[in-house]
Structure formats: C-alpha cells, structure tokens
C-alpha cells in the first residue's frame, strides 16, 4: 500500500532497463519500496538492472515483456498482479527512433509508433483494469514534451507520444473516483545513454531529476508533471507561437 505521501511499497516497471525508470526505482527503494518487478525484453541488461536493485535491498523479479506483442500483455501482466498488489506501475518503455532514417523506412517508423503508442495502450489498459480491481495504485506514464507540439526534428516519435499522452489523460479521467491515480510525466531532454550524442534542447535534465519530480507528483497526487517544472510555462507559451515562426525555432 502507498503511505500518506504516496510512496509505493511495490513497483512494476514496464521497460525494465529504462534509465529514468531505474533512477525512480532507486529513489523509491530508499523510501518504502520493497518489491520491484522489472518487465522487459530478456537481456543481460535487464538481469543486471535487477541485480542492482536487489543490492539496494528490494526483492526484485524480472518478467519477459514485449511492447510489440500486445496479445501477450494480459497474461504476462496478469501473472504479476496475481502475485500481490502493485502500488505503482511505471510505464517507461519507449523508442526514440532515428527520425531521418525512419522517414525513409516506413516499417521502422511504424515500429516507433507501435512501441510508444499501441504497445502502451494495450499495457496501460491491462494495468488500469488490474489496479481498479485492487481499488488503489498509481499508473505513471512517461510521455514527453515532444507530445505537446509537432517538431520537424522528431515528429514520428512526437506523434506517437502525443497519442500516448492523450490516451493517458483520458484514462485518468475514466479512473477518477476508483482509487486509482494516473499521472502523465512530460520530461524535456533527459541526458541518458540513449540521448548521448544527440543535440540537447534546453532545458535539459537528468534521470534523477525526473525521479524526484515523480516522487513529488505521487505525494501531491498530480495528474501532470513537467520536468523540469519550468517547462510547463515554456510550453504554454510555445503552444501559441505561429507555425511559420515555430518552424524556424532551433528546437
């Protein structure tokens, strides 16, 4: 169960090797979290991540989960929920893709769309239902600033995240009053190994900062969290910039 500050005792991460998710897990383990499920595509990285969290004192399990195989989600995630209550689900998988390449390779572009959007729709619905049956829990979904407004540089990824973002907001409204809390997290540029080498868009942030913002959002039962927080205002302004001008902004 979560405590008065929204800190979970058990955590399910979808996308078990995500740097942001693991930073969040570390932070929550330091507070109350004792059980962690890492769901992801089987790999040495996934096992390494599990071992790392075990070293911090959390009982950690791994489960094989592929966002691109929605038919399997109900069975796989159902088994996790059958083992005991999950206080928080962190939906962290995502695929940034390579915009320039994907524009020329529609199949690759579709994979970006499916991973970020339809994969999340399926996993999100399955988790929402299980959380509703429990009568409690938080579903935290990692969206992105890219979901807020189409950018020339990453609109394939951005459009999928926009779908995910809208989906999550609606799910939050659907689950209002059921004891389940749904939170959309919109980070800006986060410095991770995936984004290393890519041009930074200020204000850039870190996985640890996202983790801190998530912990705060849980305590406040926020519905939307921007990281860094200043992005809320920045994006509110950018949303109204006319397109001819927006196109020319170095974003």
């Amino acid at each position, binding site marked *: *169960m*979560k*405590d*008065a*500050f*929204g*800190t979970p*005792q058990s955590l399910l991460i979808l996308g078990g090797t995500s740097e942001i998710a693991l930073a969040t897990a570390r932070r929550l383990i330091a*507070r*109350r979290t004792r059980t962690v499920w890492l769901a992801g595509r089987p790999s040495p990285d996934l096992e390494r991540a599990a071992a790392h969290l075990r070293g911090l004192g959390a009982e950690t399990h791994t489960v094989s989960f592929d966002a691109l195989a929605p038919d399997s989600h*109900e*069975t796989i*995630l*159902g*088994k*996790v*929920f*059958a083992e005991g*209550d999950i206080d928080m689900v962190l939906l962290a998988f995502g695929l940034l893709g390579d915009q320039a390449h994907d524009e020329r390779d529609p199949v690759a572009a579709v994979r970006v769309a499916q991973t970020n959007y339809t994969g999340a729709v399926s996993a999100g*619905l399955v988790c*929402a*239902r*299980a959380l*509703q*049956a*429990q*009568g*409690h829990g938080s579903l935290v979904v990692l969206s992105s600033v890219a979901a807020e407004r189409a950018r020339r540089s990453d609109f394939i990824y951005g459009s999928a995240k926009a779908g995910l973002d809208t989906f999550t907001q609606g799910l939050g409204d*659907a*689950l*209002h*009053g*059921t*004891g*389940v809390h749904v939170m959309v997290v919109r980070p800006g540029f986060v410095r991770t190994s995936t984004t290393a080498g890519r041009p930074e868009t200020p204000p850039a942030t870190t996985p640890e900062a996202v983790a801190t913002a998530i912990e705060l959002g849980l*305590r*406040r*039962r926020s519905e939307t969290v921007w990281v860094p927080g200043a992005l809320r205002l920045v994006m509110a302004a950018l949303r109204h910039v006319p397109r001819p001008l927006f196109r020319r902004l170095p974003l």
Partner: protein
Amino acid sequence: MPWIPHFGEAPGKAGRYTGFLGARGDTFAGMPANAVPFPGRTTPLTGWGRTAPTATRLIRPRTYEEAATAVRACGARGGIARGLGRAYGDAAQNAGGAVLDMTGLDRVHAVDADGGTVLCDAGVSLHRLMEVLLPLGWFVPVTPGTRQVTVGGAIAADIHGKNHHVSGAFSRHVLSLELLTADGEIRTVVPGTPLFDATAGGLGLTGVILTATVRLLPVETSWMSVDTERARDLDDLLARLTATDRYYRYSAAWIDLLARGSATGRAVLTRGEHASLETLESSARARGARLTRRGPLGRPLDFRPSRFPVAPALVPGGLLGRTTVGLFNELWYRKAPRARADQLQRIATFFHPLDGVPHWNRLRGRSGFVQYRFVVGHGHEEALRRIVTRISARRCPCFLAVLKRFGEGEPGWLSFPTPGWSLALDIPAGLPGLGAFLDRLDEEVAAADGRVHLAEDARLRPELLGAMYPRLPEFRALRRELDPDGVFVSDLARRLGL
C-alpha cells in the same frame, strides 16, 4: 451494460467507468472470474487525515444478520469494519474489498442507571451516549479528543483520554462484547481472554464488534472544574505533570511546538475533574443564576455542546501556513492564565474543542495531513526532549500539540498506551521531506521503548512494527487461527503486514 465484477452494480461515477473498461469481458487473469456482484456502492475512502484514498464497496448493515451476510460474502479482498472514520490513517479502509459502515447499527439497548453500565450497538457514537447518559448522571469512562467516534472504534483502537493515568484505556471498561468473526458466527467475548486482548486495540482485524457492555462513571453535573497553569519550557512541564498529575482525574498539556530556544516546549496545562453539584450551585449563587432549563447554566446535567458553521469544503493549502499557526499558538499561550483554579467549563469545551467545527480536517487543504502520535517510556525523557527540539527546529506548522503522561500499560496486544510520555501533533502531508523526517523520529521512538498509535498512523515503516509492539507475534498467530482465509483485512494491515 457489462459490469466489472468486483465492483458490483455501482451507480454514479464508477458505473460510468465500468462501461468503458468493463467492455473487454468479465475475466482477468489476476482475479477470480466468479466474484459475486454485491449490492453496495463503490466509494473512494480516506481516514480523517484525507491521505491515500482507496476505493471500496461500502456496505451499511442495518441488522446483525445483514452484517453476518456481508462478512460471509466479502469476496477475495476481504472486509473491515468502519465507525465514524475518525482514525487519521488507513485503518478503516480496504482497497478493492468491502467496508462495513457500522453507523447503521446505532441502538442503545439498555442503561443500568443504578449499576452504571450501558449495553449498546458498536455503531453508537460517544456523542450519542453522552446525550443519553448525562441526564441520568453517568458519563463515558474514556473520551478521546472528539465525541464523534463509535463504541466499536473506541474498542478497536483502544482509545485513551485525558484520564489515562487514572482510568486506563477504553477497553478496560468494557465488561463484554459481541464479536462477529470470520466464520460468520457471533461470539461473546469477555476480558481476560486472548480473543478480548487481541480485539481491544485490534483495529477490527479479529472481527466486527456488534455490541458492547460498558461500565460508566457517575457524575453530578455536566460541568468540569478546571485548573489551568502555564509551563515555561519542557523541563518545567514534565516536572509539573510528574508532581501533581495524580491529584486530577483529567490531565493534558497543550504544547507549542513552534516555540524555540529557551521557550522550547512551553505549554499550557489544563487539568480537571467533573464538577460536583455543590461547586456548580455555589458558582450559580455567585452569579445570581438559578440552575433551571432556561438559566444561563442550564440544569446541572444538561449536555449542551456548541456548534459553529461547517468548515468550507475546499481551502487553499497555504491558509494554515507557518505564520498563521505561529501567530495562533503565540496568542493562545499569552492568553492562557499563568495559573487559574476551579474554572467551570462545559464538557464539550474541556474535552472536544475541535468538535465545534465539523470537518475541520478540510482546513488543512488538498494534500491532507498526518497525525503523529507516539509515546516514549519513562526514563526516556532525553529522547522526548530531542524529538521536541527537532520538531521545533524544523518549524512545522503544527497547531497545538498535546502532551500527556500515561499510566499503566494496557492488556490489549496492540493497544497503544504504555507507561510514559505521549505526544500528538498534526502536520500537513505536503510538507517537503516530512516522510524521511518522521522516519527518523520513529527510530528514536522505537529505541525509547515507545511506539506510534496505529489507528492514527498512515506512514510507519513496517520494519519497526515488531520493536514497537512486542506482542505482535501472538496477534498474528491468533489471527491465523481465527481467520485462516484472511477475511478481515484493511489498508493498514496490508501496509504494515499485521
């Protein structure tokens, strides 16, 4: 329209929702497909502190049979009894399962006006008991800081009042109770048995208390005769309480946790006794008033709690910030007399000052608040001093906190009172870093033969529970035997692994 099986035919918001997610069919790998739809509402519930809401099927039995049926049909996620929801944390919540609202069982069955006992349903509030009993010259044996608690909640949390050093906790005055257990049977439980000691303070986890016979206290008037004095700091306070507590039936100190430096722990002691008829008459004579129904003092045994307007539903979180609270505490300390004896106060003013403002808990804003009530053993005054100093140094916007010297410990296995010093304060849950701060205080408390009050708790780390409640293994063993399928369960029980 398809329904989500666990939630039954829920109208309103939940009903709208089930049409959406329920559309995928009625089974799900993680839950039994045969779950029975149970008539009842699905409602998000919290404790009085308004943190950590969870959704439950709320059932309001009107008869013992309905209660027994509800217990038998609880389903996979079990059930728990709830009284008036005055527990601050998650003791009376059960996510995804059933919550039995016991306030529908609210009959006072019999009052023995000569012997001084009452037999009543567990859903009767102490407020109601006072209304019924005071005119007959009797008072409840123990009252907490609010009258709005049920007899069932009073036993299940084994509540204490300002008279703990003299009278012990509530359950010591219970002569017998009827308990609806997991098998759907009703058992009569009397003091001195393991089941009684597990149920007193057992947070509803041994079963649903249906009725209780409670021993009462004779009083001549509905007035309190109150002595007030100020203590300039914590040392002064502890010295005064130690030296003279035994002369009073009721004693507690309001302590200003925002005072710092040499004033750390400054407090106002209010101690009293039920006023005798003679005292009241002489006071009336002095005022030239007569003790009649219309007179300013009413008749000697009239129960007249005052009521103010209900607190607004939505209050900006910052309204009760540090400055406001600090000012309030300052004023209140200054206005208290340095020493004053034999002041007449109404029962409600003396015991339940907050009950005048219904729903005052809303004044704490959206993120709610946590109540931190702990006790440290005698001989651990240093630990108490460290804790008080830490709290003052942190400048938490705490309204008056209450310090009380406890008497003997209780037989209840999970009862809170144990000999020593108890301090209670409420803090806005949104305060940054509060979780980690209270975790550190817990360690201090556990090391000082102390514990926190589970009915008030919303955040204790489970690892410390065993140190705080050494009789926990017995409690768990009894539950395993009495309730092997875990019918009775609450969010608190899940969180702490009770």
